């Protein structure tokens, strides 16, 4: 049976630079040049001060687990359980979603420190999180 392809992000005019940076293995956030708020998800307007002006900053790739779910029931043909999806609070403030890459007996919890590594998928690289050693 042919492997069902993983759904890939469909960049739009606002999000294209974010996804292009990921293909260079960089996680980028927008920082408002008016009030310096770092915002995420990507969007054209600062939700705090409503300025359209921003610059892209590069994340350190480090953060801590804010929440997570261990998926044990298959809901999509491209994702075979079990797998763990983390919500990680990055050092820059935003929380992002990505899978945990770890052995099945790895121990982790909310507040465990993690860092990003990159996985190249057809057409799009995506981050995964690895537990800090």
């Amino acid at each position, binding site marked *: 049976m042919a492997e*069902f*392809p*993983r*759904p*890939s*992000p*469909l*960049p*739009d005019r606002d*999000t294209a630079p974010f996804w292009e940076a990921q293909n260079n293995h960089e996680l980028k956030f927008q920082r408002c040049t008016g009030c310096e708020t770092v915002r*995420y*998800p*990507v969007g054209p307007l600062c*939700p705090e001060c409503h300025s359209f002006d921003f610059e892209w900053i590069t994340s350190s790739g480090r953060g801590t687990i*804010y*929440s*997570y*779910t*261990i*998926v*044990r*029931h298959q*809901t*999509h*043909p*491209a*994702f075979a359980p079990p*797998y763990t*999806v983390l*919500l990680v609070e990055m050092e820059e403030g*935003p*929380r*992002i*979603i*990505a*899978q945990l890459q770890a052995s099945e007996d790895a121990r982790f919890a*909310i507040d465990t420190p993690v860092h990003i590594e990159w996985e190249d*998928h057809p057409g*799009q690289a*995506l981050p995964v999180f690895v537990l800090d050693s």
Partner: protein
Amino acid sequence: MTIRNKAAIVGIGQTEFSKDSGRSTLRMALEAILQALDDAGLKPQDVDGVVKMSANNDIFEIDLLRSLNLSNLRFFHEIPHGGGAACGTIAGAVAAIASGMADVVVTFRSLNERSERRFGQSTVGGGVGGWGQDKIPHGLVTPAQWIAIFGQRYLHEYGHTTEEFGRVSVLCRKHAATNPHAMMYERPITLEDHQNSRWITEPLRLFDCCLDTDGACAAIVVSAEKAKQLKGTPAYIAAAAQGTGSRTEMMTSYQRKSLARLEEAEATAAELYRTAELEPQQIDVAEIYDHFTPMVLMALEAYGFAEPGQSPHLFREGRLELDGDLPLNTHGGHLGEGYLHGFGHIVEGVRQIRGSAVNQVEDAKTCLVTSGTGVPTSAIILSKEAY
């Protein structure tokens, strides 16, 4: 200007709830609407307003209008945000009636959620745009998975175990067990059954997730004056409100300060109680939207029945049972009766006020009905008296 008791629900309709309706969502919507109009003593030609949930995207409004031959419409609106819209359709109807833009407004929800597209399954392929583009490619695909992230924070912040989720499910299944309309009629579960049910997406088990259902519901809203001329017992709408929170996303508002509270439900509650001039303690029955058990706990807190993190005590102390001070989901809710995107809760709320529910709460004068959480939401308070 207040909308308090300016309008009433005077007709309700409901198809059977099943795993396979064998007919179209349009057909079921029409059956429920005609039943609701008949219940109210009204005819399709009396209808001059329709407020529809945008999630009914498989029913084209034009087909509904043609089928019922609704040639007298003055008001037709659509409410966004999935299950968060259910009571929002009532709010839209009330706004139209109170402002004189309509007199008889139809609201409804129709779903073949079990036999056609199941919300808990996805086959999305190719490119994912919009709000899902940074979640779905990581395997966070379904509502259960999105909500599990909130549920995990709730357990972490308040030190609870998943048994507290289980108590929500056990109570809804208990009420469904004595409701012949319920998919889980005569099928109660124990806390042990909940703990032994298989994991779907930790910390959610099978029995933490709502049912998959085919069916339809409808409700007819008219002005309080018109309600007095009609045959049945009106359920006056003491308040109807919608609400939003900060940094809103579709069931994934993960950037907001707390993931263990429901900002949009708190905002809706404040507006609701202000309009109704009631306190939470004056609510006799609560029909709380139950797509996933953790959200019921958070909603009970948002609507003022417990402090944050404290709603599990309401279950432990028996206060949400039929003989308690706040009977909850008397029909069995989405976890026991069937998943009609919050519309089964509205229909049951009307029955409780009429005194005609199968699990009737004695002397119910006020009923809170809430809609989907994790999205911009809505709620109503129904009242026996137009005070």
